């Protein structure tokens, strides 16, 4: 994917990311990390410039882009009245993926036990984060946009998250990761970009080969 443009909260961005890369986006609070991720999902107002995500023009074909991305943001986007299983099934089906993806995600994140039939509104904050991550997994995205994914997860959850990110990259997906947990995230990343004042000010702090399989 590539992103080149002006957004109100971003002073100017020029970013090229290849398939199989895990890019860590770092920077202080308010540097524009969240906006960058939202811009990739076509959620930020476009000033000028061009953006191509997964072969689709973000300005023209946002829907095609959104069908193949998964965004884990600050909001969990869960339906409080629906059970965990229903929430994940809806996430999978709305991305055009078979409902079995939801079952897999549940198994992977340990949600297939008692929690399966609990309404999302009755979960604790940490459990909700876990379900939100599972919802992203259920969509089987080609581009993962993870905004502070480690926040609110317990140790076991973090380990699973790391595995999921590495697996996704190995399968040829692209991951953009905004995190303050630099040690943990840097271990996953093939590349790091630094942001300040709404701009990408530095890149390639962790030069490593992209994880690429076929």
């Amino acid at each position, binding site marked *: 994917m590539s992103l080149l443009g002006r957004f109100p909260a971003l002073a100017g961005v020029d970013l090229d990311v290849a398939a199989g890369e895990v890019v860590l986006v770092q920077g202080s609070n308010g540097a524009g990390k969240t906006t960058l991720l939202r811009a990739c*999902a*076509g*959620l*930020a*107002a*476009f000033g000028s410039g061009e953006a191509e995500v997964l072969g689709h023009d973000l300005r023209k074909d*946002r*829907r095609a882009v*959104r*069908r*193949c*991305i998964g*965004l884990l*943001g600050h*909001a*969990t*986007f*869960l*339906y*409080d*009245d*629906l059970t965990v299983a*229903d929430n994940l099934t*809806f*996430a999978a*089906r*709305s*991305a*055009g993926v078979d409902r079995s993806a939801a079952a897999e995600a549940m198994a992977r994140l340990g949600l297939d036990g008692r929690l399966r039939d609990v*309404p999302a509104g009755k979960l604790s904050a940490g459990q909700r984060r876990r379900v939100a991550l599972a919802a992203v997994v259920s969509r089987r995205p080609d581009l993962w946009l993870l905004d502070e994914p480690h926040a609110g997860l317990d140790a076991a959850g973090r380990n699973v998250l790391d595995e999921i990110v590495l697996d996704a990259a190995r399968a040829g997906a692209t991951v953009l990761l905004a995190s303050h947990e630099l040690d943990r995230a840097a271990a996953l990343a093939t590349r790091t970009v630094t942001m300040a004042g709404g701009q990408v000010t530095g890149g390639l702090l962790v030069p490593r080969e992209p994880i690429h399989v076929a």
Partner: protein
Amino acid sequence: MWRDAALVAGKDLRVEARSRVGVNQVVPFALLVLVVFAFALDSDRDTLSAVGPGLFWVTVMFSGLLAIQRSFVIESDDDARDALRLSGLDGAGIFLGKAGAVAAQLAVLEVVLALGVVVLYDVHLHGPVMLLLTCLAATVGVAAAGTVYGIIAAGLRVRDTLLPLLVLPVLAPVLLAAARACEAALAGTPADGWPWVRLLFVFATIYVTFGVVAFGPLLEEA
């Protein structure tokens, strides 16, 4: 589009079935309105049965507003627009799904209200075909127009006041037409009613079409 519509409608109805807000709050509210009208007007049965159709549709309209508001509140409240956009579903599909779910809920409500009107206002049901067609067209019209304005108001701080301000004037002709058509049916003078029923179908067609076209861009506003 149709697949997405079915998905969204199924999800919305499932949420409503689970949360029971409709059963526990909207239906009692609607019945309460019928009772309150009876207090306000006159317990005189002639008056009530004469104004029955009008009150029925006023009540449906207010309850419809609640249903439309709910329809967007359930989308994770203030992130409604983000959640729907991120889903990657087709805009027209989301519109049809949401409007369909609202229409289905209103249809159930109308059955309950009709019973209420019969019992409380001493209205005798005549002309079932015209009544059914009126309900069908009016319900679709209310749901479609309401859903278009629902997405405009969704996520705004002023949504609770903005939605009625936008929707009620637009629905004014639906209220008029539905009430008149029902009156004609009940009075056994269907000839007076058919123009109104036709008008309701025109309204429904216009706003369903408008929603299918406009909902995507309205959802997309970044």
